[in-house]
């Protein structure tokens, strides 16, 4: 069965420090992974997706099939990056998304 794990429930870093939010998955096939973000008092929204290979708000994520990981990275964290981050995996049948448990990122001044 498809599964997504995010080992850190809470991650605190100082402003300007690098940040890496971990995501590991189990999947039989070629996955298309997503990162979603929820800022305080805002709705959950897509941050970036693997297939578009883009950098959004300075964040990037590389799919590592050997390690079955899709870690989210940013070289210099900003206070406005403080939010809840979810890694997500759509199953091959195009049915329900599988979300990880989420990591709350806190960027300290």
């Amino acid at each position, binding site marked *: 069965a498809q599964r997504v794990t995010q080992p850190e429930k809470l991650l605190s870093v100082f402003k300007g420090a690098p940040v890496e939010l971990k995501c590991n998955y189990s999947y039989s096939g070629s996955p*298309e992974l*997503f990162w*979603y973000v929820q800022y305080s008092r805002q*709705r*959950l*929204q*897509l941050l970036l*997706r693997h*297939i578009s290979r883009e950098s959004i708000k300075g964040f990037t994520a590389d799919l590592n099939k050997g390690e079955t990981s899709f870690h989210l990275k940013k070289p210099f964290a900003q206070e406005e990056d403080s939010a809840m981050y*979810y890694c*997500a995996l*759509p199953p*091959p049948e*195009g*049915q*329900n*998304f599988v*979300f*990880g*448990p*989420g990591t709350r990122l806190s960027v300290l001044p």
Partner: protein
Amino acid sequence: GAGVSQSPSNKVTEKGKDVELRCDPISGHTALYWYRQSLGQGLEFLIYFQGNSAPDKSGLPSDRFSAERTGGSVSTLTIQRTQQEDSAVYLCASSDYRGLIYEQYFGPGTRLTVT
């Protein structure tokens, strides 16, 4: 264009009462999802509708929970005989399924408080 909307934004109800939560998806989106987000917790999948197919109800926590989607558009999540553990934010999302490449658009959520 208009995004996913949910109503009410907040609902306070007494234990044992029934509640209905409404979701208006983005027009034309064939897929609709309900999730629950409890305080400090992640997303808990509840139910999924895709077109005219039978819904995936595998995430509904008990038979007190049910959902309908009328005319392939608006959806209503009903919780009967509410319990305090039902208190959470209920999120709705819709997506336009095109093979594997699609994303979910989320509504603002309904915060349910059972007293």
